[in-house]
């Protein structure tokens, strides 16, 4: 791997990983805010409106971070991955511009109304603004997934004589089967982040004995919505995604599982360290025949190992791929257990008084972020050595005229800037949480004359 390629990969990986910490939170919080607003409409209980207003603040901070770290992503296709952009722009230019045209305008227009328009909008109008923000953020996620899915599983294209890709079906790209299942799986992941953040703050308030009533409402919604998202995360979305991967990207699946040799009745390795040089797993803790069963529904099926593929087509970093996948899957399983315990205690009426479960919810705060990051690392490291799976190698995609030195310069610049952003984000969110969901007049827009919106 030459230097410039490494720098450009790190550049994109770092900025994308940092960026996605925020959209996963906004996409996860948006539907929960809509639920709080809906409950307020139905019950007239101001507690729910206060909850919505509180989470809208956290949403607002996270949204700003998502916007400012997201703009670089759209630029980096051209700045750092020029050759990839030139060759594939005829296809992926479409979902990327659709994101701007269909979702960014929607989000940016309604976010201001949602955050500051409560007093000049009717109650239903304000609910509508919240819903529009939710729709915009989820639509935005869809177009990004469509872009990634095409790189994972290219469809609806033909190639011109000069090697460039051109789209042959507008709907074909949007309805890529890979995109649909990846979207379902990913949005469950975002929702999981949202519920764990809401749940952790709820548990914190109960344990701290402040804003207890609000804390209970937070925790209850987190447990109920979380039970749904965490189960659907694994089954059916994770299951279908995994099997699609095994059929379309068998080398990736072998790398994820650390399966170096083809096996009949292949085991699932739960723990162990892959040794890529000697092609074995050290200290394996494995469940026999389970992998064959998960992929093919029968314990005797043959699963292709890495030995079936030329080494040049192996994922470029097998240990990292293996760990990313195992961390994602392990945490996902743990989330189901946590949510199931919470739901059981909620049903028994003991959730708010059981200190150990409250502590678990509090301590779980970072894990969904890690799981989502690990999931994306599995997808993107697993796609290597291809930038367009099977058709274009990552090594052929970067900007040849941007030297490693220039790339490193801007990578370091982003690292410095993002450290500041991270500190600012944590500081502001902590202040918001300390301040709490107190009763206060909604921030109002003081410019212009009021208009009535149904």
């Amino acid at each position: 791997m030459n230097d410039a390629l490494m720098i450009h990969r790190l550049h994109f990986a770092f900025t994308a990983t940092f960026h996605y910490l925020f959209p996963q939170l906004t996409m996860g919080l948006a539907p929960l805010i809509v639920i709080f607003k809906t409950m307020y409409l139905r019950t007239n209980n101001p507690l729910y409106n206060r909850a919505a207003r509180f989470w809208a603040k956290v949403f607002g901070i996270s949204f700003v971070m998502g916007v400012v770290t997201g703009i670089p992503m759209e630029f980096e296709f051209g700045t750092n991955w020029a050759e990839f952009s030139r060759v594939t722009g005829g296809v992926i230019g479409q979902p990327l511009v659709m994101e701007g045209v269909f979702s960014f305008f929607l989000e940016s227009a309604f976010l201001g109304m949602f955050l500051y328009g409560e007093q000049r909008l009717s109650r239903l109008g304000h609910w509508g603004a919240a819903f529009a923000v939710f729709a915009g953020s989820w639509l935005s996620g869809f177009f990004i997934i469509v872009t990634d899915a095409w790189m994972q599983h290219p469809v609806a294209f033909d190639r011109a004589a000069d090697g460039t890709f051109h789209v042959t079906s507008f709907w074909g790209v949007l309805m890529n089967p890979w995109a649909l299942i990846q979207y379902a799986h990913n949005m469950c992941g975002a929702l999981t982040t949202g519920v764990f953040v809401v749940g952790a703050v709820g548990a914190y308030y109960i344990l701290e004995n402040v804003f207890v009533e609000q804390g209970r409402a937070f925790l209850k919604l987190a447990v109920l919505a979380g039970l749904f998202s965490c189960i659907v995360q694994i089954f059916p979305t994770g299951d279908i995604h995994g099997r699609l991967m095994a059929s379309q990207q068998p080398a990736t699946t072998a790398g994820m599982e650390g399966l170096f040799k083809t096996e009949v009745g292949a085991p699932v390795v739960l723990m162990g360290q892959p040794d890529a040089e000697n092609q074995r797993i050290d200290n394996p803790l494995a469940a026999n025949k389970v992998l064959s069963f998960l992929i093919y529904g029968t314990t005797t099926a043959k699963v292709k190992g890495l030995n079936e593929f030329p080494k040049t087509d192996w994922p470029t970093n097998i240990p990292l791929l293996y760990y990313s996948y195992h961390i994602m899957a392990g945490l996902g399983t743990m989330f189901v257990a946590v949510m199931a315990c919470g739901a059981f205690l909620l049903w028994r009426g003991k959730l708010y008084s059981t200190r150990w479960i409250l502590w678990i919810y509090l301590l779980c705060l970072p894990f969904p972020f890690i799981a989502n990051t690990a999931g994306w690392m599995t997808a993107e490291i697993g796609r290597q050595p291809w930038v367009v799976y099977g058709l274009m190698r990552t090594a052929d995609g970067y900007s040849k005229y941007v030297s490693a030195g220039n790339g490193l310069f801007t990578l370091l610049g982003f690292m410095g800037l993002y450290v500041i952003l991270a500190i600012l984000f944590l500081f502001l969110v902590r202040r918001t949480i300390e301040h709490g969901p107190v009763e206060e007049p909604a921030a109002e827009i003081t410019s212009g004359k009021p208009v009535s919106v149904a």
Partner: protein
Amino acid sequence: MLLIWFWLVAIMLTGYVVLDGFDLGVGALHLLVARTEEERLTLIRTIGPVWDGNEVWLLAGGGTLYFAFPLLYASGFSGFYLPLMMVLWLLILRGIGVELRMFLHSTVWSGLFNGCFGFASLLLAIFYGAALGNVIRGVPLQADHYFFLPLWTDWKTGPQPGILDWYTVIAGVLALAALVLHGANYAALKTSGDLNVRLRRTAGRLWPVVAALTLISLAATLYIRPTVLHNYQALPLLYVIPVLVAASLGSIWIALRRGNERAAFLSSCSYLICMMVGAAAAVYPNLLVSSTDPALNITIYNAHSGEHALAVGLIWWTFGMAVAVGYFVFVYRMFRGKITGSSQGYGH
């Protein structure tokens, strides 16, 4: 169809310049014109509810460019690597400066956010002007249509220029002056009292600077790249654009004299639109000209996307943008009128 997409990209970028232009102008201006924190907040509130949507025009414009002319996107974005990355950093600082202040109320934090906002806005205006200057001057395109420009070389406009040379610096300064004038006109429209008087006075003082720089940059453009007149000579009707530029400038002056805020703002919109359209009409059908050999120019004919994508794109793109413009009309209507009332919740 390529002609249509050329103009759609031009319209998007023009829309960005006109809309985010006044955000940047207000940003560059607010440290100088506002005397108190209260006034500064009022200025920020004039753009509070709209700047984020305005910035989306850059994303949607860049996306449209990528979609329609992938080669231009690939070549231009990687060739202008360093200045674009700095634009990204500045956009981050600007966004933070406008948006996070409402969560922290203290002199020190406000000062920091004001500084970020003012500094980033000022530099962004200069960068955008210099970028346009680079497109008109041309870049050393290689046979594979790529290039890489250092930030500066010898400050001359020869075959191996840098991002900054005497010509693009003029363009950058013109952009700064024009956007500050635009921002002052916008902010005057949205404010009242003392601040409003000062904004109008600032606009009046800036007008001669903008008029002079417009003339200088026109002369400099004709000097370094006489070929910009080709399209104008082929289609003399185009000469109406520079006439409109002059008319817009005149109209800004008259409106400022008469204290007609709305007319002054609309005239400065029209000035920016005509400048952008004039530049686009001059370069067409080129997208990026070569400073070494005209045969290497990136044009709409060698950079465009597939026929199917462009044909279908006309349908959904037009629909999507029509809806987006609808949102804009709605938001601007909702926040129309002058800023009044307390500084509580400065308005998103």
